[in-house]
């Protein structure tokens, strides 16, 4: 068998399938957040794109790029498929989040960090596991890493040291009804993982 380097690609059926798998996973994540905060989480249609890592900021269509953000990233790996989840949290969301979480402490950098970690572990964990379940992959998650607090999106993305060139990017923009909370969850799969993921997807599409 000869080894050929096939270009990573994504056809319309595959894109649709990723979108639907994400739809189910983000619904599970939203359900957990809704029960924790006693709110209704507005669910968008997730965006799925195969992009150059250098164009990552283009994948973030819904985030308000001018406002100050805080971000957490967390790696995941399983069955030879690896990626990173990136949660971009709008800084204006913290006061409402603190109120909903009955956070008693002072809302300084550390208080915000605590809230950010709570929300990101819940949303990232549920989303990753939700996608994994549907594809019969168990993903192990790495430690969450804070990429920055009170930064601009462009600066946060610059700090990511991605070794791969192409990435499958799935973007989910969560908002919560009646309160000012919005955040962007990005799932980025490595270039090497996309072929394996596509195989799994093709099996579902058969």
């Amino acid at each position, binding site marked *: 068998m000869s080894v050929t380097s096939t270009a990573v690609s994504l056809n319309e*059926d595959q894109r*649709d*399938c990723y*979108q*639907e798998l994400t*739809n*189910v*996973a*983000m*619904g*599970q994540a*939203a*359900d957990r957040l*809704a*029960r924790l905060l006693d709110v*209704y*989480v507005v*669910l*968008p*249609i997730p965006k799925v794109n195969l992009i150059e890592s250098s164009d990552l900021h283009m994948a973030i269509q819904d985030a308000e790029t001018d406002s100050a953000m805080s971000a957490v990233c967390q790696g995941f790996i399983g069955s030879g498929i690896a990626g990173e989840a990136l949660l971009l949290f709008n800084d204006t969301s913290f006061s409402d989040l603190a109120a909903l979480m009955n956070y008693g402490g002072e809302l300084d950098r550390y208080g915000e960090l605590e809230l950010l970690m709570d929300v990101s572990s819940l949303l990232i964990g549920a989303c990753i596991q939700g996608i994994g379940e*549907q594809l019969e992959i168990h993903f192990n998650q790495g430690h969450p890493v804070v990429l920055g607090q009170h930064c601009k999106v462009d600066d946060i993305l610059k700090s990511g040291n991605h070794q791969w060139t192409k990435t499958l990017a799935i973007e989910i923009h969560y908002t919560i009804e009646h309160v000012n909370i919005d955040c962007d969850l990005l799932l980025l799969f490595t270039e090497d993982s996309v072929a394996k993921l596509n195989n799994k997807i093709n099996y*579902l*599409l058969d």
Partner: protein
Amino acid sequence: MATNVLICDDSSFARKQMARAIPKEWEVDIHFAGDGVEGVQAIREGKGEVVFLDLTMPNMDGYGVLETIRKEDLPAMVIVVSGDIQPDAQDRVRKLGAMAFIKKPIDADKAREVLTEYGILTGA
């Protein structure tokens, strides 16, 4: 006579999954719609005696479809099939007149159970 069943979902993958979950012995004509606007049109044409309805869709979402069915008093029994499993979502669709709620990914046994429970699938 075969029942007109409408599967309304923006994902072709989800439509296929749903079509596969319909019990084999149930005599149906299956119709498809890719968003809420198409869905309402199909229901007006009588193609949706039983509707499997997604919630998150472009153009018109599932809530919009339920509101239109109610406003125009269209003859459709709606089973919502959605990934949005928040308690609030389930409450809202029931208040808007949906008969049942099934969470995604759709499972054939669950579909059969719901159809039997509401007397849509009889005998067998």
